[in-house]
């Protein structure tokens, strides 16, 4: 095998064969090492959450990745490939040039309180800019409905850095753990609670709101979300429609207890 092992012959056949073998072995090894090094690098840059979001996003069904400009009907069909980071999207600015989204016209959708003065994240959190430059982060009404009487919030202590699409906090809905995606980058300065109607007070990083949904985008988005919810709860569309007479039914949980809520939560909170 090696020149110093007896029976090693300096013949062409030997050299070619072993040459190929050793280079293959080397390639396999280096691939592994490369992967490991890159892993460590990611951790040094603590991109772990970014990676996780990236992986999760990859696994999202296309129905969950509808572009905001499709929502507004500016384009027939468009699926997001930028992990909802419109800032990095090349198409987004052109759309904005052509059409600036109008403000929201109503605060109640399907009987849910979805005020238009807030910006919404695909993970069903809202962000409200306060006058002191901070932001308040909360769960939108649909999320509250889906979670039902959720509890066991694990809110990040003040001073924690959160990054958009990274985990903001965890809570559990009837035993099922749910992680809530952070809508924006920033530093937590205070924590609220469900009763208070908000969860985090965040000092945002500059200009990290581009990707949030707002104004006229909200209604079509919620409509599609309810649509997805419907499928998630009953793939075969067995149960009566959730929104009867424009009102989302009261207690989703009771209404469709048989559903795989674990899957539903994963679906709706964009968790693989």
């Amino acid at each position, binding site marked *: *095998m090696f020149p110093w*092992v*007896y*029976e090693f012959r300096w013949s062409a*056949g*030997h050299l070619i*064969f*072993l040459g190929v*073998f050793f280079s*293959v*072995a080397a*390639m*396999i090894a280096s*691939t*592994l090492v*490369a*992967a*490991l090094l*890159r*892993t460590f690098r*990611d*951790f040094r840059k603590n*991109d*772990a959450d970014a*990676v*996780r979001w*990236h*992986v999760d996003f990859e*696994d999202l*069904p*296309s*129905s969950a990745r509808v572009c905001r400009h499709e929502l507004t009907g500016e384009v027939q069909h468009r699926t997001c490939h930028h992990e909802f980071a419109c800032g990095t999207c090349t198409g987004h600015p052109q759309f904005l040039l052509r059409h600036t989204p109008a403000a929201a016209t109503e605060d109640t959708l399907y009987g849910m309180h979805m005020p238009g003065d807030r910006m919404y994240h695909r993970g069903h959190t809202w962000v409200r800019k306060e006058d002191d430059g901070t932001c308040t982060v909360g769960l939108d009404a649909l999320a509250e409905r889906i979670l039902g009487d959720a509890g066991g919030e694990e809110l990040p202590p003040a001073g924690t850095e959160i990054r958009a699409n990274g985990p903001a906090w965890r809570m559990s809905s009837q035993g099922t753990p749910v992680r809530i995606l952070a809508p924006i980058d920033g530093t937590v300065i205070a924590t609220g609670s469900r009763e208070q109607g908000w969860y985090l007070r965040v000092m945002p990083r500059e200009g990290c709101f581009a990707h949030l949904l707002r104004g006229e985008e909200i209604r079509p988005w919620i409509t599609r979300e309810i649509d997805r919810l419907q*499928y*998630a709860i009953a*793939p*075969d569309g067995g149960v009566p429609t959730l929104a009867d007479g424009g009102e989302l039914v009261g207690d989703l949980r009771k209404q469709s207890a048989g559903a*795989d809520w*674990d*899957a539903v939560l*994963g*679906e709706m909170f964009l*968790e*693989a």
Partner: protein
Amino acid sequence: MDKELIPRGVRRTTPGRFLLWLLPWIALLGFGLYGAYLCLAEGLNQTNMDNRFAFGLWIYLDLTVIALGAGAFFTGFLLYIMRREELRAVINSAVVIGLICYSGAVAVLMVDVGQPLRAWFTFWHPNVHSMLTEVTFCLTCYLTVLIIEYAPVVFKNRKLRQVPRFLVFEFELHKLMPVLAGIGTLLSFFHQGSLGGLYGVLRGRPFAFREELGIWPTTFFLFILSAAAAGPSFVLITTWLVQKITRKQLVRPEVFRFLGKVSGILLLGYVLLKTVDTFIWINATSPSIGFAAYSFYRSSSFGTWILFAEIVALGLFPALALISKRMCERPGILVAAAMMACCGVMLNRYVMTVQTLALPTLPFDQFLSYAPSWQEVATFLAVLAYGMLLYSLSFRYMTLFPQERELSRFPGR
């Protein structure tokens, strides 16, 4: 606990029923391992192999599973190198199948050799002219590759992915997959080939001996082609089976059709080359060393019908069926054709292993027969059971079919 391991949003049966499904396989595995233990402890007298039938069921098994396991490398090749994205739907499953086939084959080989503790001599003092050396080197390397390819599938398990290190490593590894796929293709190319060469070089066995092209006998290339043809078919069959057993739709129909088409085209190529090779063998190779090819088929049970079955019935027919669009529209025909294709390749391996040794060479030889002992069969079944277990576990706890979740949620879309 069990629930938290199952991927989100896919339906799996209850732990109880799953265990019930595993039990028989576990029992079978135990039985098989006992048989293998006997062979290792008592020596190979436990088998029905002998000095004349020095290769038996096990070698045949190795040739076969490795041919069928070729799906792993070829799917990987098409996906990562040829960028056929539709195959992403089955790549994980293909990798698991490959892993099972190759690790199983290596395990059986370790029982098959008389002195397993000396296995590493092949690396330390390799005889590079031996086809078996080529096989050994490639198998070990490719098995490593398969394990590495399997790792991401494991790391993406719902529980494990919670560990950031695993998730990130998986992510980084996945990005390098094309490299591994490339290496895997190279390795498979060589060992599928050298498995064919294994017999082609036997000038002492006129039935198997073939002319050399370059440094390899023609069987080298025929094996590569046939394996590449059988691989996708086998992936197709397994996927179809899993769908039937779990009563779920796991991949979109067009994936089946694509696999079928690939398999068909390669099979057609194989059949053509095989035919040419056979004619050369009958008219030149075999007579040149004093044996009339027909004499191989006159003696006892191996008639010329074998040639026909191998090349036409289980070669040409399925190839045409798989290629034709109209046929492939009908899943029944598609699967049947794929099965025929696999059987054809298995038959080829069988003939290569068994008929080669059964035929006499010396004028006073007799035609020999051989039937494996229960220990041999048991060892074989152990591999089957091991495969079943590994696949079942992988299917339950890992995402073998990425499309499953969406298909289960939005059927038809």
